[in-house]
């Protein structure tokens, strides 16, 4: 698989009720790519599942990555797999860290987490403490037992403090806002992570208190987009590996149309990228995947296939192995 790293599950342990912390290291003990708080990795799980998890813990440690995964009752497989099947010693493929939620320059930082949303913010706490930037963390959980990193967060910090609220005790962000939020100060940034409802509520409340929108940062993971049509489709050529025949594919043509016009049989069925009947192996070139039948893992996997009815090419030429 391209652009993935192989890691081994070094350890799994309970991090509050319903949460598991998972430490991933390089199999040969090598250092892993650098990351910064707010970064996440794609974790490739068996069965073609790819899930995004925020990195947490000490961002200076490159000996291993730490993620923390909540058990969700309506898991579509990722959380369930990690909670029920993942074992220490198991090897997994991950992506390099990407950061869509970085800490930006600030005089002071307010962090608000709900539930498992603590994971990126806990890494931010450690970085801010290290950098000597004043911070406050407000962390909401339903019940005390559900708290992740509770001992680490109970540790006194020189530059900030952490408060944990329990909605079971009536301390819900719906009922009151921390004082830090009610008086926005220039140079202070707010970082939110948690369920959609929580983030929407806090963001609206902060805006109502006069926070500048550019000082409010949040991240919600989105499932990978199924088919993202490019703003403008370019022309390219398609080559048959078997005969070497090559034809241009104009911006307004599909590969299938060009092949049919040249008397080549194409196994078409749905003609809209949903069924996969026309998936054909690619031997050269990079596919611009437009179909919604292949999984994200297949689209980024080593054995590339192109849906001739709708997909295009990112390279000038695409060579395909069409069965005779």
């Amino acid at each position, binding site marked *: 698989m391209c652009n993935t790293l192989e890691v081994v599950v070094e350890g799994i342990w309970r991090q509050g009720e319903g949460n598991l912390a998972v430490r991933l290291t390089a199999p040969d003990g090598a250092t892993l790519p650098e990351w910064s708080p707010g970064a996440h990795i794609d974790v490739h799980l068996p*069965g073609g599942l790819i899930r995004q998890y925020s990195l947490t813990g000490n961002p200076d440690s490159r000996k291993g990555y730490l993620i923390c995964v909540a058990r969700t009752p309506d898991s*579509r497989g990722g959380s369930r797999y990690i909670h029920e099947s993942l074992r220490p010693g198991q090897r997994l493929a991950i992506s390099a860290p990407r950061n869509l939620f970085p800490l930006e320059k600030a005089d002071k930082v307010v962090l608000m987490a709900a539930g498992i949303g603590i994971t990126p913010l806990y890494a931010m706490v450690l970085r801010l403490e290290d950098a000597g930037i004043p911070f406050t963390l407000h962390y909401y959980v339903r019940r005390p037992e559900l708290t992740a990193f509770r001992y680490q967060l109970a540790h006194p910090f020189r530059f900030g403090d952490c408060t944990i609220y329990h909605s079971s005790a009536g301390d819900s962000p719906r009922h009151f806002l921390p004082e830090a939020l009610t008086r926005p100060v220039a140079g202070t940034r707010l970082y939110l992570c948690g369920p959609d409802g929580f983030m929407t509520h806090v963001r609206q409340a902060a805006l109502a208190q006069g926070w500048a929108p550019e000082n409010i940062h949040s991240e919600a993971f989105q499932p990978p987009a199924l088919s993202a049509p490019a703003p403008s489709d370019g022309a390219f050529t398609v080559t048959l590996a078997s005969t070497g025949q090559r034809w241009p594919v104009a911006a307004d043509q599909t590969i299938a149309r060009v092949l049919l016009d040249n008397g080549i049989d194409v196994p*078409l069925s749905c003609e809209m990228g949903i069924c996969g009947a026309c998936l054909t192996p690619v031997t050269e070139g990079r596919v611009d995947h437009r179909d919604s039948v292949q999984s994200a893992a297949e689209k980024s996997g080593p054995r590339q296939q192109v849906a001739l009815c709708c997909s295009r090419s990112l390279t000038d030429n695409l060579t395909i192995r069409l069965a005779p």
Partner: protein
Amino acid sequence: MKAHRPTPPAHCSFDPEDWLRLARCWHPVARACDVDSKPYKAVLLDEPLVLYRINGLAVAARDVCPHRGVPLTLGFHDEAGIICPYHGLRFGEEGRCNRIPASPDCPIPAKLNLMTFPVEERYGLIWTCLAPDADNPAPLPTMPHWHDAAFQQINCPPFEVNGFAGRQVEGFLDVAHFAWVHSATFADPDNPLVPDYSPQETDYGFTADYWSTVSNYPAGAEDRAPPGFRWLRRFEMHLPFTATLTVHFPGEDRLVIMNAASPVSARKTRMFAPIARNFDLHIPVGEVHAFNLRVFEEDRLMVETQRPEKLPLDLSLEAHIPADRSSIAYRRGLKKMGFGEFFLV
């Protein structure tokens, strides 16, 4: 269980390689409540089986007396086991022969023990696996809510379909046929539209969350749902032949139906349907059986007349529309398991 090399039975209707792939999976063969100390007949993947209980434990074995090959399901039983009608040999715990009436003092050779298969009782069904793979054991399908406290457990009588299990299961996953086939039971003939949905691959197959306005209340009682209520139907497909459907009724009401299609042969299917529900508990179980039987009967004509009889895994052989995303995911999943051309007769 006696170790043996799994081989397809005589007159097997499957391709031998595909038979072995299916034989490594768990399949239901009977309702647990239908099996007692009497020999009970079942057929799985063309293999005739005898099922019985001894001291409460279910045994599944090939339905053939190791002595002279007579089916044990023609025989009798007593408190110590099932008895072959030909020479009275008796088989008890774990299928072991425990009596040879013609030679009572003779030691009993191991060759006289029945060829047994592992048994699991789950969701009110007896499941077996003809060719367990010790290195890579197949998982048993799971069913949401079956074990939850507030839920009632119901098991419809098995339903025989003269069709291939793959076609039957695909019909269960199909969301575009409600308005055409099921308008007499629950669907609205004027609401044939299928909103888009997107199946998600899992380690056991896939799940699909299907949101629509098609009510799941019986025809005539649709107004029990608030106007404009959006129904969530969550399908979980456990390859190859077991799917569950969780219908999210208004409020916290849930109905779960497991469609466990047992492949009797390549052309015959025995469908089991455990049901779990946490509402309408006052409605007698007999009425639930009758309602589901009507729904299954509505599907019968379609599934039994589809051609080709088996399921074309080569997706270029049939036409597909966006409503078929689950059926496409199903065929791709089976293909990934290695099933081949046999799915096409």
